[in-house]
């Protein structure tokens, strides 16, 4: 099983171009039509420390990086020490022999070679690409043209430096890992000549929302949600989405509600701590019936936690935000494709039902870069029920609880309110009106739930073997573990978590199941037990901030299943 996946790992200091080397490697693979999964592991610092990127590639779909790498490139001593144990059977370690003495593997004097040119420290990452190029059997000319595309600044020195490294590696392991191209993917999104596109989860979310008609994104930087902000800001002009970065998350959420009241399809994004600051506005959106879509990308908590790593411990937090009774939507994508579709679908749904929603994801999906066929045309389109005719009341008490929308400029007055209000939006303290408005919102919640019955809310994979319950980015880990371990199982992945799609899970009541999640207390297992009546026979958790490793997870699943 494993052999069909080739894994490349490059490690070094932050600021040395480790991530860039990984990205170039991934692009190289995907451009031949291969499937690729790229995972960046980096601490919360800007220069130094220890970064690494793992890229796994195959001719079949690959849904996780593997920590057993065929080719490891260690740019510094720390990387050599850490990643020695990550060299797979038959794999090769290429290390910087200037800083590692008597290492095992292929020693290359990277520092010495780099010192021949200015800015030695910044250049060293290029050797990661050069070593890979040699190991997969590229010629020096092929490498040179790659460098030309990717390292444009100070090009000549880069080519010379890369060539020298290539030569060192070629001598001992040149062509050791020839990679076959994969079948060409369906035309629409294919780059160049049968290649595949790669997206991070955050890019897919941004694109999905854009495809659903996003007009404005409001965000304040917070890892691992920041790249939604960065990506949309970078494409502000070509997409036609306005991007605003205000003074705080509180400003973000309240500005977004204002934008929605003016008619703009709007989205916000942050991580746990930032989302906590939006909580008051989340409840405000519930009362005002503001369509407010929030991307909540988790990292290990509580509090500041471990900012650049992954965890799934914000589940109960996401499901229960905001004081008071009001309908809300929470869903979590399992893959990059799904992130695209779901972002669009959720934007459309919060606009139809005028209530806040949370797209819950984790660093592992947000920042991993994966080959994915994104079917842009399949995206939902956010289109609220428009008011027609005379006599506008913002909170008209309709059968399904949904009040038609009208936007300014308008001759009729349109009043949104955080207070309990009457149909016209005027504050009320009257017993009957309070009840009527509670009932209206609850009915709207019921309509939303009814709507969800027509939507695919739970994914199922496989038709026999033990039941495995998982969600979010851990879905990818589970699926890859099953491939890696050759395990048959029935995987059940709820995509929608609130309203909880109990109707899709009736068959699991009182069934025993293996639960796989990234939270120390087993939040998802508890949810599935409480809401769906599942009996978790075994809860496989990981909470050290690192995503599951497929082979390790396969072993754990194997153990749990017997």
């Amino acid at each position, binding site marked *: 099983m494993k052999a069909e996946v080739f894994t490349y790992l490059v490690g070094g200091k932050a600021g040395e171009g480790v991530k860039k080397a990984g990205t170039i490697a991934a692009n190289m693979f995907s451009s031949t039509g291969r499937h690729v999964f790229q995972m960046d592991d980096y601490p919360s610092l800007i220069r130094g420390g220890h970064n690494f990127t793992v890229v796994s590639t195959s001719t079949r779909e690959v849904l996780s990086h593997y920590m057993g790498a065929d080719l490891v490139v260690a740019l510094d001593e720390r990387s050599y020490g850490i990643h020695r144990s990550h060299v797979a059977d038959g794999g090769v370690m290429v290390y910087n022999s200037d800083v590692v003495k008597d290492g095992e593997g292929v020693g290359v004097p990277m520092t010495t070679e780099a010192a021949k040119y200015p800015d030695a420290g910044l250049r060293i990452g290029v050797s990661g690409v050069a070593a890979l190029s040699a190991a997969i059997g590229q010629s020096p000319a092929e490498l040179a043209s790659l460098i030309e595309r990717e390292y444009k600044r100070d090009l000549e020195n880069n080519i010379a430096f890369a060539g020298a490294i290539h030569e060192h590696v070629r001598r001992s392991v040149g062509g050791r890992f020839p990679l076959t191209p994969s079948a060409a993917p369906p035309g629409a999104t294919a780059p160049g000549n049968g290649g595949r596109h790669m997206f991070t989860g955050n890019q897919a979310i941004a694109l999905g929302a*854009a495809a659903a008609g996003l007009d404005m994104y409001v965000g304040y930087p917070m890892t691992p949600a920041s790249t939604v902000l960065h990506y949309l800001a970078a494409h502000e002009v070509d997409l036609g989405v306005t991007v605003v970065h205000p003074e705080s998350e509180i400003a973000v959420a309240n500005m977004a509600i204002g934008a929605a009241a*003016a008619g703009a399809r709007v989205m916000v994004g942050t991580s746990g701590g930032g989302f906590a600051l939006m909580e008051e506005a989340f409840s405000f959106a519930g009362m005002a019936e503001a369509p407010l879509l929030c991307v909540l990308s988790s990292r290990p908590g509580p509090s500041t936690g471990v900012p650049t790593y992954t965890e799934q411990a914000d589940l109960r937090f996401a499901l229960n935000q905001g004081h008071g009774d009001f309908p809300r939507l929470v869903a979590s994508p399992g893959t990059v494709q799904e992130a695209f579709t779901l972002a669009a679908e959720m934007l459309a749904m919060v606009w139809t039902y005028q209530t806040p929603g949370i797209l819950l994801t984790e660093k592992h999906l947000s920042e991993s870069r994966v080959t994915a066929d994104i079917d842009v*045309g399949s995206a939902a389109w956010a289109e609220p029920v428009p008011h027609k005719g005379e006599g506008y009341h913002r909170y008209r008490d309709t059968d399904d609880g949904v009040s038609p929308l009208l936007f300014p400029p308008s001759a009729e007055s349109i009043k949104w309110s955080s207070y309990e209000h009457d149909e016209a939006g*005027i504050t009320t303290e009257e017993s009957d009106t309070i009840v009527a408005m509670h009932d209206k919102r609850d009915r709207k919640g019921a309509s939303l739930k009814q709507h969800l019955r027509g939507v695919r809310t739970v994914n199922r994979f496989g038709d026999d073997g033990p039941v495995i319950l998982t969600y979010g980015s851990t879905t990818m880990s589970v699926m890859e573990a099953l491939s890696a371990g050759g395990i048959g199982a029935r995987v059940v992945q709820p995509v929608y978590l609130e309203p909880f799609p109990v109707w899709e899970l009736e068959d699991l009541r009182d069934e025993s199941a293996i639960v796989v999640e990234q939270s120390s207390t087993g939040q998802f297992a508890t949810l599935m037990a409480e809401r769906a009546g599942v009996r978790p026979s075994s809860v496989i958790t990981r909470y050290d901030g690192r995503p599951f490793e497929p082979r390790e997870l396969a072993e754990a699943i194997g153990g749990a299943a017997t």
Partner: protein
Amino acid sequence: MRDELLTGAENTWCPGCGNFGILNAVKRAVSALEERGIGRDRLFMTACIGCHAKIFDYLSLSGVYALHGRSVSVAQGVKLANPDLKVLAFTGDGAGYGEGIAHLLFAAKRNADITVIVHDNGVYALTTGQRSPTSAAGFEGPSTPQGNEEDPFNPLVLMLAAGATFVAREFSARIDELSGIISAAVEHDGFSLVEVLQPSVTYSNTYEEYGAAVDTVREPAATLDDALKLARQKERLPSGILYRVERPSHGTRLYGDRNPVAGHPSRDKRLERVNALVSS
């Protein structure tokens, strides 16, 4: 005859409250703006929570009754979404200079094209009279029964320090002057702050004090230095437009003449753009 600018909701301000003056001044300003071509359909209001904010229920204008301290943020969101609107954010001294002061400073800094009207009564009135950021030292409220241990902010100085391009002060009892200032503030292309000295007859009845101390400023100060000096006067209360200067407003600097809402794309158009990016 029904007043078209009122919703008809029962007014629950205390008889004699300074908020009535503000309500009347706003109504006059709306009429004046209409005469000058800014129809009420293009006016949009936001309000915080507090006695002051009840103006939301009374005025028949479109808007958002926002959270305590957040009307200024909501207003900026509205304006950025649709720059054709003229947005008025109503706030109090507690909401605006306390809970939400960050938003006010940043709105001034980025010259957000909104008008902020602060009903400054020097007290948290609706929550029964606690001291606020503009309460005098020694003020006895239920959270400071032994007297406020803090000195008050000078909000005008703070706003000038933050970069506000239009700063005015007026007494709620001077309805003519106040309505003139409000319409000028709405017409100002950029951030405008109207600090209204508003007596709370119940918790801080300052009619006489303000009546005696207010001085009309005929012309805005020529320089920021002069404006700071005017704003820092203590015995007298210079009123009127204290400072006004032109700077490009936030929306313009952010996206030129784009209008996100008016320019909302067709689905085809948008999918084309997304496709182009996805396939690039």
